Each structure stands twice: as C-alpha cells, then as structure tokens.
C-alpha cells in the first residue's frame, strides 16, 4: 500500500533519512521504533508530504505522492505534538476539518470523541487545553474520517492510562477492519499486543523491518521490548 524507495533527506549537514526503503501493506500494524532523532517523525512527514525527500520516492497505492495531494484523504494523521490555531474552540476545529474533508460517502467515525468525553468541552479554546486533551483531539481527528491508513506519531505520549487503553482498543478495532496502522512509539510495552510488524531505525538508517513473529523467533524473546533491547544490545 505504501512503498518507500531509497528515500533520503538532509537538513543542512544532518542526514535525517538515509536511503530508506520500506513496504507497508494493508492489514498490518507497523511499529516504527528507534531512539530519539533517528528519523521516525521525518519519515512519517515524508509519507504525508509535509517533508519533501531530497531523493527517492514514495508511492501510495502505486501512485507517486510527489505533487499529489488527493491520497491524503485516505490517511488519518495524529501528530506527535498537535498544533492548532490557538483561538479556535474544539468544536470549531472539528467543524473546520469536517468542512474541509467532507466526503459524502464516508461515514464519520465519532467514537473517540465520545469515548474521550470531548463532547462535554467543545466550547474550550485550543490554546487553553492541556497537552493530554490536545492529544485526544488529535487522535479523534485522525480516526474521524474512517481512513484506510492511520499514521500515529507517539500516540500514547501524554495520555493517561485509561485513555491509552481506549486508544489501543480503537487501534485494534481498526486493524481488524483491515486497515494499515503505522505507529511510532518509544514506550514499547504499550504496543506489544497489537503490533504485527516492526521497523527499527537508527541515525536515519533503517536497521531492520521484520514481522513480530520473525523478531520473536530470531531473538527468542516473547516480549517486544525485550526483543528490541536484545537487538540493540547486539
């Protein structure tokens, strides 16, 4: 579904992405793992077209995403730090996104809005929200349009355990519905039970891309975090 081929991106002297190639398919739940500054977020932004690669290309459903924008209607994106116009209320942000992305055929998925109890605080201004609430808004927006692909950048950071659980449950549900879910996270334990594939990045390079089973087999560890630790140690 998403195929990245030799994607390279430099910010000045810093090489953020170095010749990354990866293939992500429908029904997979991929965990993008790596230390801070390893290029996870840059890679995700490349997928979203927010960062333009210096070389290499990315296809989405066999179409090059360069100079393309329609493909993003099939993606729900939850940024690491959700940034919104400060003087808009939650309701206005939701309405605006609905207005902009309105596709008559798609059934809106407002489940998360209810589960996170956002409907009770719709009149609050984005500028006055706590980091956690902002994350809830971001998550709700990502799932709102029932997209085929979900890209979640550090989804559980800043969420309380209860909300984390709600979100995980939601991800699992979407996975079962056959969607491609791409998650970056450094808190590995959160993801253990939903991940099917692991991409490990380090200093802009893709170290490996394996299915969870394969990884468990290779390392002999059941738990994802242990397996990764072993890989990193070796």
């Amino acid at each position, binding site marked *: 579904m998403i195929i990245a081929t030799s994607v390279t*991106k430099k*910010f000045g002297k810093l090489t953020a992405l170095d010749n990354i190639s990866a293939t992500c398919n429908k029904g997979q739940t991929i965990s993008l793992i790596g230390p801070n500054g390893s290029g996870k977020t840059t890679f995700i*932004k490349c997928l*979203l*077209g*927010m*960062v*333009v690669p210096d070389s290499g290309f990315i296809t989405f459903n066999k179409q090059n995403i360069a100079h393309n*924008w*329609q*493909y*993003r*209607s099939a*993606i729900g*994106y939850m*940024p690491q730090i959700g*940034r*919104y*116009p*400060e*003087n*808009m209320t939650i309701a206005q942000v939701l309405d*605006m*996104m609905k*207005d*902009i*992305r309105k596709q008559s055929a798609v059934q809106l998925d407002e489940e998360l809005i209810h589960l996170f109890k956002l409907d009770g605080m719709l009149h609050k201004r984005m500028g006055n929200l706590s980091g956690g609430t902002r994350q809830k808004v971001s998550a709700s927006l990502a799932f709102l349009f029932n997209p085929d692909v979900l890209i979640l950048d550090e989804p559980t950071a800043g969420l309380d355990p209860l909300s984390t659980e709600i979100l995980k449950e939601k991800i699992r549900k979407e996975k079962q519905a056959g969607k491609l879910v791409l998650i970056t996270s450094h808190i590995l334990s959160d993801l253990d039970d939903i991940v099917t594939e692991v991409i490990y990045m380090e200093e802009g390079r893709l170290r490996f891309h394996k299915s969870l089973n394969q990884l468990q087999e290779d390392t002999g560890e059941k738990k994802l975090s242990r397996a990764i630790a072993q890989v990193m140690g070796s």
Partner: protein
Amino acid sequence: MKKIIKYVLLDLLRNRIVIAYTLFLAVISMSVFNLEDNPSKGILSLLNLVLIIVPLVSIVFSTIYVYNASEFIELLVSQPLRRVNIWLSIFTGLAASLCVAFLVGCGVPVLIYAPSDVGIMMTAMGLLITIIFVAIALLASVLTRDKAKGIGVAILLWFYFTLIFDGIVLFLLFQFMDYPMEKPMIVFSCLNPIDLARILILLKLDISALMGATSAIFRDFFGYQWGIVATLLIMTTWAGMPLWWSVRKFNRKDL
C-alpha cells in the same frame, strides 16, 4: 479553496490588530479632512499614509501572521489539500482583510470628502500597494525559517522600498546628470511598486508640473492610457512575482 479562505478570514477577523489598523486609518483620514478646509490638501497628507504606513502595516502584519499561523498551516498541510491552495488561501485572506481595512478606514473617507479622480486613484493605489506588500511578506516569511529574522527582513524590505531605493535613484540622477536619464528613470520607477503608485497618483495630482518637467519620453510612457495600463500591469507583476515565487518555495518547504 473557498473553505480555507473562509477559515483564514474567520481567524483574521478575530484578530484585534486588523480592527485597530482600520480604526487608525479612519481616525487619521477623518481628522485630516476635518482639519484641512481644502480637501485636496487632505489628499496630500493622506498620500504619505498610503505610500508609507500602508506598505509597512501590510508587510509586517502579514509576516507575523504567517509565522503565528504555522500550526494552522501544518494542520492543513497534513490534510488532503493542495499546498498551492493553502498558500493562496492565506494570501487571499490576508490581502482581502487588509484591503477591507484600508477601504473602510481610508477609502471611504477619501471618497466621501474628496470624490475626485485623485481620490479614486489614491484608493486604488492603496489597495494595490496592500496586495503587493502582502505578497512580498509571504515571500519573506517562506524564505526565512526564524520568526525574528523574518520580521527583520520584512521591515528592511519596507525601508528599502520607501526610502533607500529613492535615495539611490536620486543619487544616480545627480551622478549622471549630464546624460539623458529619462529612459533609465522609467526603468528605475518600474523597480519599485511604491514609486509606480506614487507616479500614478502624481499623474492625477500634479499633471501640470509633470507634463513640463520631463521630456516627451515620460509623456509617451505614463501620459497615455496604455502607459497607465502598462504601469498597472507592472504593479500586478509586483504582486504576482513574489506570490508565484513564494508558492514555489512553499510547495517544497519542509514543515
């Protein structure tokens, strides 16, 4: 695109600075016309407003707005929207709201107190200058990542267009006094939108003097209908080129 413009405009309308700018222009215009018994003298006072304050506010406000809207822009870019459309919507929203502010604050008093062709020309030029400097601001802010640096560049550009450029031209005119300078002068004028606007207003305000001071080449260029049309086209280019360039830059910008 309409929808994005709508949300940019909604955001700008909530912005108190645009309202303050409108009031500021209105207070100045009204007091100028009420203090001077002769409306044509009022027009002269407002000329400086149009040629100095309007470009300053347009360029600085737009630059600051674009930096402050970076979250909003990021949010929009991750959505299924064309980047060109996002950028043009921001441009349209900014230009439209500043134009409305100018029209209400300055244009309406001018058209009430001095509804002559000078007044109409000045209002038109104020609008054009607004649009041009919004475009230049967008370019300045897309070229510089840092907010403080971007605002600095904006103020510098304003200073260059209102004062430094004319100073250099004046210097050159005296350095090369013994040579025919009419043609180069027309080229110089085209290099500065504020000069073009000023000359178009002068054509209505000081036509008698202009027809005498410079020789036939000036009359042949600015004096005729097509010359004015050509000047307006060049001014449109002054809005179009920076905008086009900024769109190109924004299309490839990493957010």
